[in-house]
């Protein structure tokens, strides 16, 4: 499971542009993941400046 914490997210798009599989979408203020494409590389978790993303 990959999740973004709405309370932390500053909807900056850092995760979107970093994802090597292009499986993250930023809908203005809402992050959406296409988990079928995700390889759990963890880059989105690491790049998020405020730690809003969790990968389980």
């Amino acid at each position, binding site marked *: 499971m990959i999740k973004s914490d709405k309370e932390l997210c*500053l909807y*900056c*798009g*850092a995760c*979107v*542009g*970093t994802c*090597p599989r*292009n499986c993250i*979408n*930023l*809908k*203005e203020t809402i992050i959406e993941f296409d988990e079928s494409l995700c390889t759990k590389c963890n*880059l989105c*978790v*690491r*790049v*998020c*400046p*405020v*730690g809003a*993303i*969790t990968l389980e």
Partner: protein
Amino acid sequence: MPRRSNNVGVSDIMEDIKCDIVVVGGGPAGSMTAKWAAMHGSDVLVIEKRQEIGSPVRCGEGISKHWISDVGIRIDNKWIANEVEGARIFSPSLKHIVVNEKMAGNEVGYMIERDQFDKALAVDAAKAGARYMVKTSAVGLLKDGNNKLIGVKAKHMGEHFNIFAKLIIGADGFESQVGRWAGINTILRVNDVESCLQYRMAGIECDTRYSDFYLGSAAPGGYVWVFPKGDGVANVGIGIQLKYLKHKSETKTYLDNFIKKMPGLKKGKIIDMVAGAVSVSQPLKEVTKDNIMLVGDSGRMIDPLTGGGIASACIAGKIAGNVAAEALESRDFSKQFFQKYEKGWRAELEEKFYRNWMAKERLSVIDDITFDKLADILQDVKLEKLTAHNLLKVVKERYPEVVKGFEGFI
């Protein structure tokens, strides 16, 4: 009340739109491209997914001065917050060198109000005839039976519709999805992404004459910036190379730790928070395909040493807009025709980007002790021009091991 629909097809409420050129993204790259194309009579539509052009701000707001009039931007006090004389570059033990504005890279000169700046560019483009739609996202590309790109799938206020266009401009910033949908490889290595966080702080002590840069382990593979906006306000931010980030929220921890150590900043109040990422990569091999061109951050057109990308977005935008108008006139939207754009932006930016990428790769592995020694050396060496190249030359003389493997380039 617009009706909400969940169906993914074409909505019966939002009508499809036809135009010559659809620009995805209303940042500097999008608005500059739109303006120059529209000035030549093209029918241009800019779509911007946010509800307000330029806001929220995602930027340190520093720009150099020399390129502004070349791309046809009128200097306007509405978007100038402060003018700085130069940059101060601090080593880890806080020794610093002063570099004058002309030599200090593309983030030093004016401190701008970025939301006002982006809006001013949009107004210029609209005056030239470009149409705008805000709160409108591109959600995919439209292709015909032969896989030719014929426009974008879009969504406005929850309604899906299609925008048919002869040419698509990807100006969607760091997210850079439009290009990837079209098969242009804009994926970045972990060395080539900076994770950034910035606070706008009020009530701090800073010298409004200088934009300050702090190098070393306070910001591995990047730097901390303090860009003064005047009246005790500054943008205090950090960029860290993704390679060095292993855990959640580290970027924020680094920035908070830095501020805690600086008496002049510690007492400041945070009145704004800005996150984002910046690409610091080599220039891409291609930013065009048939019927599509990428401009600005979406085409990774950022100076890899400073992380500044406003100037390059505008410079490339002007060239892209002109080439787009020519393509329309010649009715040729082939990748081959767009070589004009590739040649144009590369002539302006590619060599510097490449050199500065090399410099970044080297600087990002220098340890604090060496940074401090370098600061010592640079105190007495009078560099006629503080370019990455000159800096590396000095490093080579004193610390050949640091630039091993890059001698040819120097």
